[in-house]
């Protein structure tokens, strides 16, 4: 009896609240359209008043800057100094950081903007661009920056900013996935520390010697690290590996394009690595950085600024690290995917946009960016004019891989790229830790991926 009553009362509560929500939802819509209208009105007002290039700020502006790096050891000092320096230069403008954890940042930006918070600038991965652009959170940069200004940036990096042909971000600095290797371990294994492998076959020949090594503590040394953990960036890295094998993952229209030898060979290679125990299983990039810093990993793929993470574990690592171009496998020539730390602008009215533009330009000046790239996050500056800087050209972390930037391609930017990347990592896990057969796993992957892409 009372059971029935309980179920009934549950249903009644639902019914009651449904009607409540009905009213609530309608109200919310109204307020939303209201604010949209006022925004438009403001925008038109400002358009007419603003004509010159130098925007006059009539009142103090606060830029809301979503940036995960502000809080991370290794990055924090730079970002706080940049804020300070900029605010000194432009006393009318204040930069306010909005912070969240790296892995949550994209979600947070969406939730923030969705909840009515204004975000003026986002610092993050190029792979976030399609999601934010598709949601209408960020502006095409061609709307605000002059063609002259944008033409100073490497075209290949600008390409990586494009979502369906329109660039939505300004790259701050970029890196292909490159290969870091440990010169000391090469020496101990009787290999030439100055000639790292250039092809997958060469690497596999060297691997047994490296695998036989032990660290001073008697720990195992892994010859080759490739990230396969369930995080988005691992998917980008896997895509890069596929490119290195001459394969492809998505075509320019964002459709699945994996019926090629390169794709299959990549996962066969991963399986082989795993079977021989060469690759630390299911690692995130930060796990690999950790192992590399401790001298337990001879070679691994990472973005150039990943070295910042290595150094924060073991400052001595600068003495043994060297970089090389990614390996060529199969029919490939070792192409890679460009990764860029990117600045993305929100759309919150003229004054905000102009202030944000000034801040972006400030961040890309030589005085600000070059010391950062030299001392904090090794990376290739996006401004062509800055590439001639000695500290970057001669940096042991970067010099070996300098060439690979020329051959690096940009990944296809589609709104579901993050979920797709997670599925790609699941495929790599299927053939490694799950020990599934490569062909069959790829077939299964295809089914799931098609649904994600058609989403």
């Amino acid at each position, binding site marked *: 009896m009372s059971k029935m009553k309980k179920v009934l009362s549950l249903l009644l509560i639902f019914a009651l609240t449904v009607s409540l929500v009905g009213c609530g939802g309608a109200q919310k819509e109204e307020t939303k359209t209201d604010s949209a209208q006022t925004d438009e009105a403001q925008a038109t007002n400002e358009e007419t008043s603003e004509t010159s290039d130098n925007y006059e700020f009539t009142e103090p502006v606060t830029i809301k800057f979503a940036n995960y790096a502000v809080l991370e050891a290794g990055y924090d000092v730079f970002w706080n100094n940049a804020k300070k320096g900029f605010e000194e230069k432009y006393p009318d403008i204040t930069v306010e950081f909005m912070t969240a954890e790296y892995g949550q940042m994209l979600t947070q930006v969406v939730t923030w903007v969705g909840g009515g918070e204004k975000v003026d600038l986002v610092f993050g991965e190029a792979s976030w661009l399609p999601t934010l652009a598709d949601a209408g959170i960020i502006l095409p940069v061609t709307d605000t920056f002059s063609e002259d200004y944008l033409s100073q940036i490497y075209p290949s990096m600008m390409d990586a900013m494009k979502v369906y042909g329109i660039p939505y971000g300004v790259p701050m600095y970029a890196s292909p996935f490159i290969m870091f290797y440990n010169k000391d371990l090469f020496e101990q294994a009787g290999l030439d520390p100055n000639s790292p492998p250039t092809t997958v076959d060469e690497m596999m020949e060297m691997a047994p010697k490296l695998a036989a090594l032990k660290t001073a503590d008697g720990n195992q040394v892994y010859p080759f690290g490739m990230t396969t953990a369930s995080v988005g960036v691992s998917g980008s890295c896997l895509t890069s590996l596929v490119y290195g094998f001459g394969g492809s993952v998505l075509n320019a229209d964002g459709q699945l394009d994996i019926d090629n030898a390169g794709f299959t060979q990549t996962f066969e290679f991963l399986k082989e690595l795993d079977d021989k125990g060469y690759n630390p299983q299911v690692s995130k990039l930060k796990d690999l950085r950790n192992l590399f810093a401790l001298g337990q990993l001879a070679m691994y793929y990472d973005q150039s600024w990943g070295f910042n993470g290595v150094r924060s574990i073991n400052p001595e690592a600068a003495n043994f690290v060297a970089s090389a171009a990614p390996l060529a496998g199969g029919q490939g020539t070792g192409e890679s995917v460009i990764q860029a730390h990117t600045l993305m602008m929100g759309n919150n009215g003229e004054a905000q946009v102009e202030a944000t533009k000034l801040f972006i330009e400030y961040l890309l000046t030589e005085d600000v960016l070059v010391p950062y790239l030299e001392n904090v996050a090794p990376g290739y500056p996006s401004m062509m004019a800055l590439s001639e800087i000695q500290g970057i050209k001669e940096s042991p972390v970067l010099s070996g891989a300098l060439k690979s930037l020329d051959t690096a391609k940009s990944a296809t930017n589609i709104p579901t790229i993050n*979920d797709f990347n997670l599925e790609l990592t699941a495929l790599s896990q299927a053939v490694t*830790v799950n020990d599934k057969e490569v062909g069959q796993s790829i077939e299964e992957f295809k089914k799931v991926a098609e649904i994600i892409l058609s989403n």
Partner: protein
Amino acid sequence: MQNKSITFGSHKTKGAPFLKRITKDRLFALSLLIPSIIVTVMFILVPVLDSVIRSFQDYRIKNIIAGTPGQWNEFANYMKLFSNNKLLPSIETTFIFVGGVVLAQFILGMAMALVLNSNLKGARFIRSIMMAPWIVPTIISGLIWMWIYQPQYGLLKYVVEIFSFGKITDFAMLNNPATALFGIAIAALWKQIPLTALLLVSGLANVPDETMEAARVDGANSVNRFFHITIPYMKSIIKVTTSMAIIENFKQFPLIWTMTGGGPNNSTSTLAILSYREAFVSNNLGSGAAVTTVWMLLMVVVVILFNIIFKETKMD
């Protein structure tokens, strides 16, 4: 808590003031209840219903940003979930996780409670210190276990190496699809066993000694006594602890998300992870909401079933 019955009626006085008093009582009670009702409806029930409605719509991030309402899409969100073969494995994973954790939690908690309820020396002290894991924030408990499971220099790897006499030298709990869920379950148990044990031990204290003694005199062995006296007497507390455990583990998200993110190869992808991925990684709030709706329905069904089953067993 679910079937709390209110035994206390309104006051019965005679004559005209009676009606007046009832009305006043009503108003008084209502004014006391209103804050809680408002808060619960506004912050919990309305958002939940909002999400249920969204599960029938094509609703994406851009709808939020532009403020456009979602479009009714004829159950496409649900159809997609069934066609891409993700929902059923996630339901399975969720049930394995919840079932395993709740069962293990009950058995271990009960074992601990039985021992602590005997005349063991230092039982009080043990009862205090065993609670420590319960206080540890979930995120930190995830980190602690990740550190223990760490595949290269973790404690567990070493322990397994020793107990397998050096045969298994690369044990990595969270990297193996066969063991990853188990690894998370251990971390969940670690945090949850203390409270279960504590509540059960206090429930045991309610079992009357005389009845126990009488049964002993009648020759009932300890197993019989446990099932025929202890368990029936502890019924309500067992019910409460178990339903609390079911709800908590059904909802478990941060622990899984920090420890494995649903991997490797989706082996730890529960409904919580799937809904988060659909909504916030794929940015399809509609299909994320569809997962959540299925998830909530299952939870409600399980809790109701649990209550029904528990009522039936009362008879024996």
